[in-house]
């Protein structure tokens, strides 16, 4: 792995290797001293063109637990708000000696461009690009599912599991990355959304699409993932008639959650609109693993940074 841009680039063995490393990272984080010296002397730049709290903090925590230095570079208050191009920003980071760049952008393909345009030689990690992909989020979701639904086996895939992903699929890079990763790991995925929030071309994705949440939940899925309705991207409106109707038809209410099998876990990538796509009582219920997803995020991002930074793949004599 040279970069971590897209789940579509991953082979099943690579995904499982990252998950196994993440499991190891989780183990080290229960020790008295949680900081590992692994990446000491390297610099990770968090380049965030879009607002983000948990993803940026999660990457920052992951890099710091591995002893890397972290530079946060966000669009607000930087020369990006003065109109600097992605290319000039990349050249600046290269000149400053960044060893890896974590990039979040509102434009689909920004991470790919940064990795392959020749402006910068270092590994690039995609922390979300437009409506395209958010691969580390999918990895942490798979990691969390595996811990609950395939416990005790650090090498297991998600074979035979059924996952229902509900909500604003149109604007969701999380949904796209998850469909690709979960199916790569052997799970079956059903997307549930109002017709206007299903992207054009989604019928070609390796998943089923349903417009009826109750019908999808009646199948007894192993995990239900609620997506945030991204009001800030719904310029012009018209995606669904009213908020109340959306909530009634596609929200995870306490009654709907109660209809699920006992082992089903409930997930949300955050930030949540409580009372809208998910009822507060469901988000706080024991079967909700939403807070655990945040902890998993740090382990998975540690694993990704480790795989990208702790090697340059040169053959060298092994010392003992």
């Amino acid at each position, binding site marked *: 792995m040279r970069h971590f841009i897209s789940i579509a680039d991953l082979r099943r063995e690579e995904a499982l290797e990252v998950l196994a490393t993440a499991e190891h990272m989780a183990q080290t984080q229960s020790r008295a001293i949680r900081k*590992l*010296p692994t990446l000491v002397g390297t610099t990770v730049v968090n380049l965030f063109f879009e607002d983000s709290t948990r993803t940026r903090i999660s990457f920052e925590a992951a890099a710091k637990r591995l002893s890397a230095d972290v530079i946060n570079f966000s669009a607000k208050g930087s020369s990006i708000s003065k109109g600097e191009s992605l290319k000039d920003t990349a050249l600046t980071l290269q000149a400053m000696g960044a060893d890896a760049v974590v990039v979040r952008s509102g434009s689909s393909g920004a991470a790919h461009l940064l990795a392959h345009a020749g402006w910068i030689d270092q590994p690039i990690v995609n922390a979300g690009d437009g409506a395209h992909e958010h691969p580390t989020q999918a990895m942490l979701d798979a990691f969390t599912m595996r811990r609950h639904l395939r416990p005790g086996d650090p090498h297991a895939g998600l074979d035979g599991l059924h996952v229902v992903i509900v909500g604003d699929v149109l604007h969701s890079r999380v949904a796209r990355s998850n469909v690709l990763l979960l199916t790569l790991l052997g799970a079956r995925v059903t997307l549930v959304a109002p017709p206007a929030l299903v992207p054009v071309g989604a019928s070609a994705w390796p998943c089923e699409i349903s417009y009826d949440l109750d019908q999808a939940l009646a199948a007894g899925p192993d995990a239900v993932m609620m997506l945030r309705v991204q009001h800030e991207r719904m310029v012009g409106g018209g995606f669904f008639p009213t908020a109340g109707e959306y909530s009634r038809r596609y929200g995870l209410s306490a009654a709907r959650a109660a209809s699920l099998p006992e082992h089903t876990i409930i997930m949300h990538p955050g930030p949540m609109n409580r009372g809208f796509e998910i009822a507060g009582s469901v988000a706080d219920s024991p079967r909700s693993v939403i807070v655990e997803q945040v902890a998993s995020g740090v382990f998975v991002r540690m694993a990704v940074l480790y795989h990208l930074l702790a090697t340059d793949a040169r053959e060298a004599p092994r010392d003992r």
Partner: protein
Amino acid sequence: MTSTDPALERGAESSRVLGPEEIRRALTRIAHEILESDHGAEDLVLLGIPHRGVPLARRLAELIARAEGRPDGADLADLHGALDITMYRDDLRSNPTRAPSPTRIPAAGIDGRTVVLVDDVLYSGRTVRAALDALSAIGRPAAVRLAVLVDRGHRELPIRADHVGKNLPTSRSERVHVQLTETDGTDAVDIVRPARTTGEGRA
């Protein structure tokens, strides 16, 4: 015994240094040395360094338990474990990425106990340095000792082993190849001499 193994690099020669019986005797002696220097097994923890240190630590734990008169088949989970050092290496950037192995520490922890680190080959000493760093993140042992099956010399750090199965003078271009029943199906230690044209060896 000198033979040419087709699985090795072309032209490399391999000679057997220890067979199953010699390995068994070396481990038995080390087990008794550990018991003597620590006056019993009460506060002892044997931590193997993956991969081949882990089965060696388990075997030493079994030998120590037997010497101490514990019944065969007794639970030895408090006596041995595994210590992964991948995240503490100083040569990560010059090596292909290694997937970390699990660390398993006895439930009682290592604080105030005597930890014996166990590995198959002692060479530069860098693995042991990494293991000492890894230990300090887990707790504060009363003492740390080092037991190895083979010491092949060429130390790059001020580190020595307390218990050595076999001192094996080697040249840097040679490779020490350890096989254990648990990981490789057989017990053996071989020295592999590379073909003359090959440069620096790996061990």
